[in-house]
């Protein structure tokens, strides 16, 4: 009787030990990202779980503003997901790597094997204090999308100079076609054209402008390039390059305008191509080139900055598994699933970029790109810039007033 009891206890103990060991092997990770990247993140996560059956990853996606609000709260409370989408740059975004790393909220990933592959030009965007905190997936670029067929039908070539662009505006608007679809009701869209111009007029000759701005050694008002960019922006509006009421036009409106052939061009980011083709635009009609700024044959610079990046929460209890997921993501075959032809932040010969972005990629490879505004000293600068542009368009602010206000805000910490 006694030995039976001992056997039973022994059996239970073995079960307990084995069960505990199995339970320890099973890991559940939480991952949060912006809803724009839901499709590629979901695909990569599914692949990771297929190859690592003992790991479960639960994902959460939210629109950008909600994501920033919720994640900041979770980070402050110590309940953030293990793996999180983080923006590159110093302090220009409320969820930028600089701000989070400054507050010790991200795990230091400097010793990860993928760190050595990050190009020199990208490193400063993913580091803080010389240490690497996020893995950069892709690059956001701003360029001029055009409908090849509409331009041909009106005897126009792809605009390569500023004057080409103005001439195209005139001819197309006379034909009743919107030359440039512009959605200034949406704050982030307002800055695309000035970013596309200042890449050439400011950052091509002064790549450290943002750094000097943060140090108080440069000003917006003192920058001829910024003034010129805003003047050109208003000139495009004055010359009828944009749709009627750009300040009241939404992003969905301009996607429809391009997809239905009511607009010939738009200054946008790569995601626009997918949206337009999804709404019925023939992919072969769509082209993308750097925004034409010069008239003397000088090749323009472009805005290019790290977009999707992932880090590990410093409070994560599953550091090893979370780091393993990012190592998995950094493999070229997995990255290609995520990128789907978009431009990688960490180039690799095995990664193919869609021909649509070939001229943008060439500009990056030739060093003609700048992460405009990514190192602005605080998030309010961008907000004042975007709202100020709306005010320029409705006539309630002048360029001088806007530049002065930007300088005042940039001095705040």
């Amino acid at each position, binding site marked *: 009787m006694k030995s039976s009891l001992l056997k039973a206890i022994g059996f239970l103990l073995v079960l307990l030990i084995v069960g505990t060991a199995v339970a320890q092997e099973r890991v559940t990770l939480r991952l949060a990202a912006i809803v724009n990247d839901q499709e590629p993140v979901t695909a990569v996560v599914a692949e990771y779980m297929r190859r690592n059956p003992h790991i479960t990853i639960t994902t959460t996606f939210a629109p950008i503003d909600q994501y920033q609000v919720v994640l*900041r*709260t979770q980070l*402050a409370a110590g309940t953030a997901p293990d793996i999180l989408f983080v923006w590159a740059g110093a302090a220009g975004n*409320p969820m930028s790597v600089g701000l989070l790393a400054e507050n010790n909220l991200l795990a230091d990933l400097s010793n990860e094997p993928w760190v050595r592959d990050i190009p020199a030009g990208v490193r400063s965007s993913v580091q803080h204090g010389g240490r690497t905190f996020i893995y950069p997936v892709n690059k956001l670029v701003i360029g001029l999308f055009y409908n090849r067929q509409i331009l041909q039908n009106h005897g126009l070539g792809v605009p390569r100079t500023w004057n080409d662009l103005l001439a195209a505006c005139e001819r197309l608007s006379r034909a009743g076609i919107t030359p440039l679809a512009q959605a*200034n009701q949406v704050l982030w869209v307002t800055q695309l054209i000035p970013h596309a111009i200042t890449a050439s007029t400011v950052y091509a000759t002064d790549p450290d402008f943002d750094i000097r701005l943060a140090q108080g050694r440069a000003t917006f008002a003192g920058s001829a390039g910024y003034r010129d960019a805003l003047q050109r922006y208003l000139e495009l509006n004055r010359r009828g390059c944009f749709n009627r009421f750009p300040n*009241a036009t939404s992003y969905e409106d301009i996607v429809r305008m391009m997809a239905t052939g009511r607009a010939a061009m738009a200054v946008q980011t790569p995601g626009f191509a997918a949206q337009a083709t999804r709404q019925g635009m023939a992919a072969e009609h769509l082209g993308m080139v750097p925004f034409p700024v010069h008239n003397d044959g000088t090749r323009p610079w472009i805005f290019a900055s790290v977009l999707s990046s992932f880090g590990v929460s410093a409070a994560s209890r599953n550091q090893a598994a979370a780091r393993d997921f990012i190592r998995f993501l950094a493999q070229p075959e997995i990255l290609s699933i995520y990128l789907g032809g978009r431009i990688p932040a960490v180039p690799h010969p095995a990664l193919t970029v869609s021909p649509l972005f070939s001229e943008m990629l060439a500009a990056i490879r030739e060093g003609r790109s700048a992460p405009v505004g990514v190192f602005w000293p605080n*998030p309010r600068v961008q907000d004042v810039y975007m709202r100020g542009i709306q005010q320029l368009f409705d006539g309630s602010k002048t360029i001088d007033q806007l530049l002065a206000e930007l300088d005042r805000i940039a001095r705040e910490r």
Partner: protein
Amino acid sequence: MQERRTLRSAGSRPSFKPSRRFEEPPWLFIVPAVLLYGVVVLYASVAGVYYAFTAWDGLSPTAPFVGLANFQELAQSREAADSLRNTVLIALVATVVQNLLGLLLALGLHSHLKSRYVLRVLFFAPVMLAPIVVAFLFQYIYSPMGFLNYMLAAVGLENMQQAWLGNRSTAIWSVITVIVWQFVGFSMVIFLAGLQGVPQELYDAADIDGANGWNRFWNVTLPLIAPAITVNLTLSVIAGLKIFDQVWAMTQGGPGHATATLSVFLFRQAFLFGNYGYGMAIALVLTIIVTVVALIQLKILRSREVEG
């Protein structure tokens, strides 16, 4: 009491007398609710008040105490002044128009109209929609190529087409229109409830006295629906002062700051710019404004109420 008596009479032992602890519900029953309320509401509110006096960025483990600095900054902020002006304008206009229209609808539907029940449901339906859904719906209606401009063109009024949400002179009125459209049914229902409580005899007496329609409304209906007016005006003003969803979804406070309200200003400062302490200071000021306005309004309106 009734229940206890029944229990006693139905009991198999007539001598049973419930002990004192069954006479009143044990106070321990309310402990979970009080704890929950304390943690979720009281603690959060008190912490919010404390943070209004700090420069916390919403991320750091420390929140440096800065005294009244946030309030000084708020008092000097042009953006805050613009937001306050917009908030007051929205609260005032939306309250007046929504309640006037609500009262007219209630009077119209407090009749023997055959379709009155269907119409009541139709006018109340927008109240049941989420404000965010209504905002997106109207964003489409107001868009340059949207329904409103299309209709204007269809009736030959192209010159009246507008950038409804993109022009600083029309944006705030467009937002107010949406708020009124959505909540006019809410005011209507409360007025209807008030109207149904007015005794028919008083109207009969007024008829005998030779009162016309206006006199009946002014001297009988209006005084007797005063409690409904109090409820409607108080709720509308509070909702107007706190308005956020519709504004954020339709304009994000733009163009520029043309439609920014105090709630939008607060949200941006606290959650988008990381000025959490400053954001809490705005929230505290907004709470004080709402409380003071609501109390004054209640005091004035209550003094005008009469017994039915």
